[in-house]
Structure formats: structure tokens, C-alpha cells
């Protein structure tokens, strides 16, 4: 389906925010992703949905390779071929009354849509974000505008709690976890709290909709495709 790029702005040295206009009703849950067709590249690029309305999709992405470099150069007005509503996303019915949403670096964006959805459902989420340093922080205002508590952890202590997200978790009261970020962080979070948890994983993908078996992983519930059966796995099924 075609979407129009209406905004593409830089948030930090390496992180950008892209807004697309078009039918977003294919997105049914926070934590889903889209597949962008970029000119000059064969495979689509999977990017998690930060937040969405009926007719806009916000993507926040980090420039890490040639594909995302090309994305950062795209000018508003461009028509883009996008597959939306991919992946299972987070199940808010598995979140308690006080869910802790943990985003590590560029794992933070999907926590925005999840936070909004949980607030709309009358729950009281806390967003915990982990970065290396204060200069890397993004989306803090977005969370605070929604009325949710934003807790920050930086490795060098230049903002918020000094240390890892697992250090900051100790002082937060929560009954469930939803998280996205680098795998070592996911594992540390998994080991830090035995509450109901949903963990969003990343894998290099081919199609993004379950056909190619490029992103398979083993779980306690059998083989799963990160793109179709994930990217969100529940605590009980994860094999580290």
C-alpha cells in the first residue's frame, strides 16, 4: 500500500523520526512493525511502529546501515510502498495495572504506542528508558505529554539513574513488564524480575510476513518466526 512521507526529522545524532500518511487501520496492536520498500534496495526494511492514528504512522529509527542511511535522506512528499500491521505486537491484556515498559536505545519507540494504549485502557504504565549517555535520549517529552512517568537510566550517569535499566528497575513498583531492546538487555530484564513479561526480539528478516523462514527461532512452544509469530514472545516460552 502507498503512503506519503510527511515528516522526516532528526531527533539525536543517529536517531530520526519519520511520519507517514495513509491508511493505518492495518495496525492492530502496539509493538507491530512495518516493511518499507526503499528505492535502490531489494529487501524491504522492517521498522517498529512508534505510534499511529487512523491515517498516520510514526516510525523512529536509528541510522545503522545503508538502508537506514538512505531513509534519513528521504524528503517529505515522497510516496512509499509500505506493508503494515506485521507481527503479533504486545497483548495489553497480559499487562497488569502497573506495567513497566522498558526500552533500550532504539528499542524505546514501540513503548510509545504501547504506553498510549495502556493509558487509554485505564492502566498506569511507567516507561523506563536506557541509553549510554544524556545526548542519546529521545522521546522523553512524548512520554511525559501522555502523562506517564518517564524514568531514565544512562550508563555514564549523565542523566537519570547511573547504570543499566536493571539498576533503575529496583526503585520502581510494577506488576508486569513489556520490553524491547538489545538481547543482552532483554535477558537481564528477564532475570531481574519474575513478573509476567513480554519481550520484543529482533532478527534479520526476509519477507516480514512469515513466508521465507528467514527469522526463525526456537522457543519452548516450538519454532517461531520472529516476523509473524513474534516479534513479541512471552516470558514462559523464551529459550535464551
Amino acid at each position, binding site marked *: 500500500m502507498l503512503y506519503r512521507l510527511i515528516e522526516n526529522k532528526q531527533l539525536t545524532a543517529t536517531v530520526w523520526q519519520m511520519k507517514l500518511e495513509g491508511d493505518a487501520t492495518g495496525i492492530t496492536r502496539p509493538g507491530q512493525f512495518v516493511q518499507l*520498500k526503499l528505492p535502490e534496495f*531489494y529487501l524491504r526494511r522492517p521498522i517498529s511502529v512508534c505510534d499511529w492514528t487512523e491515517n498516520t504512522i510514526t516510525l523512529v529509527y536509528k541510522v545503522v546501515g545503508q*538502508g537506514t542511511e538512505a531513509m534519513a535522506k528521504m524528503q517529505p512528499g515522497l510516496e512509499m510502498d509500505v506493508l503494515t500491521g506485521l507481527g503479533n505486537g504486545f497483548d495489553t491484556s497480559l499487562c497488569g495495572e502497573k506495567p513497566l515498559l522498558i526500552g533500550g536505545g532504539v528499542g524505546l519507540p514501540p513503548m510509545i504506542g504501547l504506553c498510549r494504549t495502556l493509558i487509554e485502557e485505564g492502566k498506569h504504565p511507567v516507561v523506563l528508558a536506557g541509553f549510554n549517555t544524556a545526548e542519546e535520549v529521545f522521546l522523553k517529552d512524548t512520554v511525559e505529554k501522555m502523562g506517564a512517568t518517564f524514568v531514565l537510566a544512562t550508563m555514564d550517569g549523565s542523566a537519570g539513574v547511573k547504570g543499566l535499566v536493571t539498576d533503575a528497575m529496583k526503585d520502581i513498583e510494577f506488576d508486569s513488564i513489556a520490553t524491547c531492546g538489545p538481547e543482552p538487555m532483554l535477558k537481564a530484564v528477564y532475570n531481574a524480575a519474575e513478573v509476567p513479561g513480554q519481550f520484543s526480539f529482533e532478527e534479520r528478516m526476509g519477507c516480514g510476513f512469515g513466508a521465507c*523462514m528467514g527469522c526463525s527461532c526456537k522457543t519452548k512452544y516450538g519454532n517461531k518466526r520472529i516476523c509473524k509469530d513474534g516479534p513479541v514472545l512471552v516470558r514462559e516460552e523464551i529459550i535464551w
Partner: protein
Amino acid sequence: MKDLSVELSGVKLDNPIIPASGTYGFGQEFLPYYDINILGSLSFKGTTSEARFGNPTPRIAECPNGMLNSVGLQNPGVEHVIAHELPQLRKTFRKPIMANISGFSVDEYVHCVELLTKEDQVELLEVNISCPNVHGGGMAFGTSPEAAAEITRAVKKVAAKPVYIKLSPNVTDIVSIAKACEDAGADGLSLINTMLGMRIDLKRRKPVLANVMGGYSGPGIFPVALRMVYQVTGAVKIPVIGMGGISTARDVIEMMMAGAKAVQVGAANLVDPYACKTIIEQLPIEMEKLGIEKLSDIQRV
């Protein structure tokens, strides 16, 4: 009204478009995008005797005009396919099914063929002797005429349906292998499988794929596939299904002009889930432009 129908060893297809094995699962992932009954047939995910997880990830790498994959024949095993995947596919698909079979020994191929040939709606058997992503099986059988002939003879003894042998392009002389299969009784041939390739991640200074090498597919291999189909159809009398980078209706017509009786669409499905639908819709339009009334009238140039 343009006539798109073709025939493969007595099996009539409404059109020559067959999604290639490994790019279409068992059809279920494409149901949200279109009615898969518009297809000519469907070659399902390569099936082995036992369930296989396949290779470690990353299994996918970007390439100019294509991609690498090193999936390694992940599949739930032939018994699970018969008990679960085929009944599910039959609920939504009424066209002839092409069963894609792989293995690590002659006995394994024979076992899978014995089971799948009995299945209703499986009207064609495609025996993959060309997977580049597994060791000690797959491509090992497809790189020598003797081994290719041995597999062909063995599966033909137990097959009650036409057998198409899927050939590897990673050989010095594909024609000699094609002829060996024909002489051993193959009803047809499918070519080409992916071309063995590799990418290196410059930052990590390591291969992109966990399995180091993988199969290159996509528009980049189309001229090679076309050349091989042309060479093989000039040397054998049995029908050939052409594949390798086909992405448009024009590619389909070109492949049929090279001698293919039908075609498979592979990588294109993965970057555009509507690829087969678009090709099928565009075929009559391209035929009109080229003055073709009946697709099966296309002769090898």
C-alpha cells in the same frame, strides 16, 4: 480473451505461474493479500522425512538485485505436512499442488515421494536435488549426472505422479545433468535453484550469514536462469519449468521464449506479497502488446 493455460505432463494449469518452493510456505501467509486460487499451481515448502529447524540466523542478506538465504530446509517433516499443512492448504486452494521434496539420502527422497504421491491434489512432484544450504544432501545429489540419475530412478519407481527434478545452477555443465535425469525417467525439470553466494559485513568483518554462504536469488540471476533454460530445452525433450529472478509478466514471456512450459516466481513474493497476482493480471496486457493470443503457443526462440 487471452488463453493463459499451459500443460505440464498432462496436468492442466490455468496459467503458468507457480510460486517457487520456500518463498510461499503452504500458501497461508498470502491469504490476507489475495485469493491464491488465481495461481496456476503452488510448489510448497521443501519437505524432508524428519522435522528440521534449519541453519542458525542470520539467514538472510541483502544483495544488489536480489538476496541471499541460508534457511536450510526448515520444515515440520513429511508426516506433519500431510497431517496438518496439506489439509489446511486444501481448505483455501483448489488448484493442482506441486509437492517439493528434499532429502539427505536416496532412501529419504523415496520415503517422502512414497507418502506425498498418495495425496489428493498433489498432482506434480518436484524433487529438489539442488539446495545449496545443507551439507551431505540437497545439492550434493544435483552436481553430478550419476547421482542425479540415481535419485531420479529411485523416486520414479515409487511415484504415481509426474516427477520434476529441480536442478542446481552451481555446476559446470547443467545440460549433462538435465540429460542424465531425462534418461533416468524424469517427467520434467525445474531450473534453476539459487546460485551459491556470500556477503561480508564490513563493520563486523564477518560473513553476514551465520552459515557463511547462501543461495542468491532475485532479478540479478534472471539472465543466468534464462540462459540455462535455453541450453537445457535445446537438449532435452521433457518439459522444463523456468525460474530464477522472475518478477514481471515480461520476464514470464521471456522465460517461455527461452523454452520453459511454465514458470516459478520466488524471491519476488518475499519483497512484494502481491507479485504473483500482479504478474497474472499483467500477462494478458503484455500478450496483447506482443500479439500473443495463446501463451502455450510461445515457441523456443
